[in-house]
């Protein structure tokens, strides 16, 4: 069992959770992920690491309560425990002295993006950061990202704060020369930003949240086509150069279990959103 040390709702339906994992904490790096399983009947859910505290021996992750498992996880309180917390999994993000780096994060993904940004800053990179959210109330890690950024932009889908949408990134790319780019967010965001960086042939690292089961290279559920080759996101990624990724295939594969996920979510809600099981 793994104990929840602290927990906070940092935006509507977005939770930051800190879990005691003393063996894992010193081995975790930006870009890697964990897999949680809440209880004995639970699904294995991958979540990107958003930070570690070596003193306390804890690992943090931020998640969006979108489906049955994450909604249930959202109910857990500090002091309670979950059954499984496995990691670190996947390869660490590339972190070196690139020069000038464009960082784009959307929604919940701004939390793990901050972890990567901090490591890049330590490597003396110049950071141009875009922090995006649905509305001005949905912004995640805005202040933290601002603090590490050399140049900082905010974007919202509805234009309630900062730029409306992400199209303005095209102007940034036109005006400045970048050595590296990192995007974290829903696949639609990854695809959109990659379309803008492609004309400059700018290496754009994207974190692919493909469907996963084991997360250790055994099932092939996470397979994605990168540069025409089959790759397993959990073992070969999850970070890939977005210029080479077949996003349409990825989007199609992600939708595979939509009917089942909807059914599980519906049953869960009908039961009053509580299935804490022994």
């Amino acid at each position: 069992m793994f104990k929840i040390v602290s927990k906070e709702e940092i935006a509507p339906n977005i939770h930051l959770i800190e879990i005691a994992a003393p063996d894992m904490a010193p081995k975790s790096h930006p870009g890697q992920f964990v897999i949680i399983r809440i209880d004995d009947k639970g699904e294995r859910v991958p979540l990107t690491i958003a930070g570690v505290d070596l003193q306390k021996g804890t690992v943090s992750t931020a998640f969006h309560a979108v489906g049955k498992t994450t909604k249930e996880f959202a109910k857990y309180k500090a002091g309670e425990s979950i059954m499984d917390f496995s990691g670190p999994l996947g390869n660490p993000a590339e972190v070196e002295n690139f020069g000038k780096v464009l960082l784009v994060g959307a929604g919940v993904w701004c939390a793990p993006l901050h972890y990567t940004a901090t490591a890049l800053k330590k490597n003396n990179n110049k950071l141009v950061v875009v922090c995006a959210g649905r509305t001005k109330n949905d912004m995640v890690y805005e202040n933290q990202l601002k603090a590490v950024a050399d140049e900082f932009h905010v974007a919202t889908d509805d234009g309630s704060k900062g730029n409306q949408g992400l199209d303005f990134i095209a102007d940034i790319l036109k005006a400045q020369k970048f050595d590296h780019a990192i995007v974290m967010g829903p696949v639609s965001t990854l695809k959109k930003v990659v379309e803008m960086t492609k004309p400059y042939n700018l290496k754009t690292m994207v974190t692919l949240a493909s469907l996963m089961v084991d997360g250790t290279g055994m099932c092939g559920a996470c397979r994605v086509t990168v540069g025409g080759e089959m790759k397993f996101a959990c073992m070969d990624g999850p970070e890939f150069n977005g210029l080479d990724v077949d996003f349409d295939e990825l989007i199609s594969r992600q939708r595979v279990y939509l009917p089942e996920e909807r059914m599980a979510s519906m049953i869960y809600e009908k039961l009053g959103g509580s299935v804490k099981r022994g």
Partner: protein
Amino acid sequence: MDREQRKQETPMAKQDVVDRIHNFYEVALGYTEEQAQREATRCLQCPNPRCVQGCPVNIDIPAFIKEIKEGNYRASAAKLKEFNSLPAVCGRVCPQENQCQEQCVLGKMGDPISIGRLERFAADWERNAGVEIPEKQVEGATGKVAIVGSGPAGLTVAADLIKQGHEVVMFESLHYAGGVLMYGIPQFRLPKEIVQAEIDYIKKLGVDVKTNYTIGRIFTIDELFADGYDAIFIGSGAGLPNFMGIEGENLGGVYSANEYLIRINLMKGYLFPEYDTPIRIGKNVAVIGGGNVAMDAARCSLRLGAEKVYIVYRRAREQLPAREEEAENAEEEGIIFNLLTNPVKFTGDESGWVNGMECIKMELGEPDASGRRRPVAIEGSNFMMDVDTVVIAIGQTPNPLIQRTTDGLETTKWGTIVADDETAATSKEGVYAGGDVVSGAATVISAMGAGRKAAKSIHEYIQKKKTGQ
């Protein structure tokens, strides 16, 4: 018992086929005490038993059978455990017909002794009666050993070493220990309660089982040495699925056998939505391949409600790599065998879900390197199959993570670790390896045999190291 009676095996009851295709309960029901007695009585107790030579771990077969005959079931189980720490597992899934039973002298004039069924009987009897935990035997210097992977290879090493007084920590990346026994072989062939009982036994012996630890990510092999382990055994199996590299393979509804079986066995997808992990199975399922893995995937599909399930295999019936018993069970259950057939392409609907499979007919040509006649495509024989779920069961290779993250560990071009046949030693000092990660996908008993040899070498290595000799 007269000569004629001696020639005839005692049949074992199976769940009726009409019932069993709708449930995940065990198919083979095991012997009753009377049946076991009768079968044990048939054994000739050969002074030079050929059956033993056929057994990869050389179980003293006549001795354990004699104990059954005399009603000493606990002693029978103890005899088995001298050679094999997982008799309840091996009694169910070992390919006995090509091993011990193939050699049995009675096979010359009638049915060989049903050694596997007797093994299962003794092990089940002991588990039901309550297993006694043996005392640790502390002899000589004791060491600290890390075991990577908790399949049959790792479990065997762990049990053998802890009994000799070593401190043993076992690391498993999944959330349950047991390897393929837990996530691959379905409940109706090997109930998970039985695997769990074996793991509980190993825990009771004192092995520290750490699940959720992926070695190569959380600790590397060198970091384990730095943490004070004296020796390390790698039994990480062959878990990386092969794909075919043909068009449409990434469509929804096309699974690797591993994903399919993990969703079903490990995550209990057949109990969705009570359990949270979904599995979707259509009406017409095609399983590509002809081994045990393919049979398991096909039989699971049937139990999950598929109407038509096909085995699509590029060679002929005689060349199926699956155990005969399992192929027969599959046929009995109504699985349709499309032999000498190979898929060339999958097609999908507008939502990205598979809806068809183009195949080509094959014929057998000259024998290939494996000695089997090579299947050759018959040009122009392409035809379509109407399928909405496809499971690819064409083999696995070792998980590359440890090989990639360990310096000085020699591997082959197939990704297997090079280890000595007799000692299980690898090219790196203090590191031993065995099971599927060395042999490539093989059998439970061969993994256990390798584990047994490794445990012996590790014990000797540690004694030498501690006493400085």
